[in-house]
């Protein structure tokens, strides 16, 4: 086992602790928007896709990379937009009172 691997594992472990704590505190009211928000966040795969596409090492890898960039961008755009659309609807007081 390389130390680089353990180092990444370290980050994964800490991030999981943070993730479980943070999510457990999300308001029940907002579980549906949460699903679409995390959906947008999971599109972080775009980072890997850009690196792959941008480094353009072989036509094959570039093609797959671009497809992946496209797929992730779709998720980013639609995920954030729909989350915001839903959240905009949550109002505490009567409108106009």
């Amino acid at each position, binding site marked *: 086992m390389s130390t680089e691997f353990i180092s990444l594992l370290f980050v994964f472990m800490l991030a999981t602790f943070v993730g479980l704590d943070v999510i457990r505190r999300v308001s029940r009211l907002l579980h549906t928007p949460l*699903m679409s928000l995390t959906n947008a*966040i999971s599109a972080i795969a775009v980072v890997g896709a850009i690196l792959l596409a941008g480094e353009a090492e072989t036509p094959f890898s570039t093609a797959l990379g*671009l497809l992946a960039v496209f*797929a992730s961008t779709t998720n980013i755009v639609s995920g954030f937009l729909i989350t915001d659309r839903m959240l905009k609807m949550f109002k505490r007081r009567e409108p106009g009172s």
Partner: protein
Amino acid sequence: MSAATELAYLVSTALFIFSLKWMSDPKTARRGVFAGVVAMALAVGGTLLHHEIVTYRGIAIAFVLGTIVGVPLSWVPLTAVPQRTALSHAFGGLAAGLVGTAKYYLWLPTGELTTFRMAAIAVEIILGYLTCTGSLMAAGKLQEVLPTRPITYRNQNFINFGLFGIAVLIAFWLVVDPSRSFLFPILIALALAFGVLLILPIGGADMPTVISLLNSYAGLAAVAMGFVMENKLLITAGALDGSSGLILSIIMCRAMNRSFTNVLFGAFGQVQAGAAATEQRTAKSATPEDAAQILENANSVVIIPGYGMAVAQAQHRIRDLYEQLAKRGVDVKFAIHPVAGRMPGHMNVLLAEAEIPYDRLVEMDDINPDMPQVDVALVVGANDVVNPAARHDDKSPIFGMPIIDADKAKTVMAIKRSMNPGFAGIENELYFADNTLMLFGDAKAVVGDLVKQMAGGESVH
């Protein structure tokens, strides 16, 4: 990675965490989305700065195309949100799978495939492709393009586990010697097939739990990608995502009092028809006139919405009803069961859409102690979540599931189209209780009638 990129990633990670933290309160939630957008922009920007990136044109085109497809995807009606989410997971899984595939073929000839990298790639592509086809299946079932009932066959679990075992074996074989490249396409094919087979035996109504799990897998696929690319941002964001999917599915399972195994392999929803046939007793029904009068004379009314409200899109009529009652000084609250509807938080979003203030929405555990003091419990298209059998009948399939104690209210009124059962496929004794009045009909129409009665016959459109 240059220091600038690393720094962008660091800030991006922090913002992603804050983004989710701010979701803890509707007041800060939109700020959370904003933080998420900035985080994503930093992640993309930081990556584009990376010096090894030689071509930007293709990427720019992919961005534009992605946006063109993404924007309309965000316009779907709220009832189609589960399908949209599933479809997105399919895209996410695909992206992870593709990157893993490309990395394998890039590193194969150069001998850079260390054991560690190969293992990470194997996990990435299994999770990625499995999520892709699994989510497509889930989206299909939710959209009812595919049959929603569970599709089962003999030895199903045996075959599925066997296939999964073979995939693991092949992955292991590849890790031992990555140069056995003929195995790689087989692994991909197995992962794709496994995604389909996993969803086949699960009923359409269990899809929300499955979607959450797939969300978790999509996150873990991003984590695996992070291990492949030695990228901490991917690992953290993926882990946040993985946790979210996991916790939401746990919450749903708990609120249904079912186990993961039961959801995934229980083929729930198959026996629906059979169980519903035992109906014998008679229920009392009421006219909208009577119902409107009872509501007007009540001091406190608790409205319990369920899946039927979503189907009928009755939330706007309910808002009218709420206003009519509030005008008459009736105290109106909404009791929200954690799994009412078909996805977590489903009722909240719909009621919010109708501009019902969210401080009127009360969670199950908070309203139950007050139910005996409530004059009228108005059940709008809810069924399982108010079934008292969950409390006392230990032979009922939903026994032990926490419910909203509608039956304890002085009067219960239930709006639904027929005596048909709900999601769990079982009869509901609440409808036959002495203090229950049925209001048959589509929820939107019935609530509309009630409002019309109260508004004195004038049209309320």
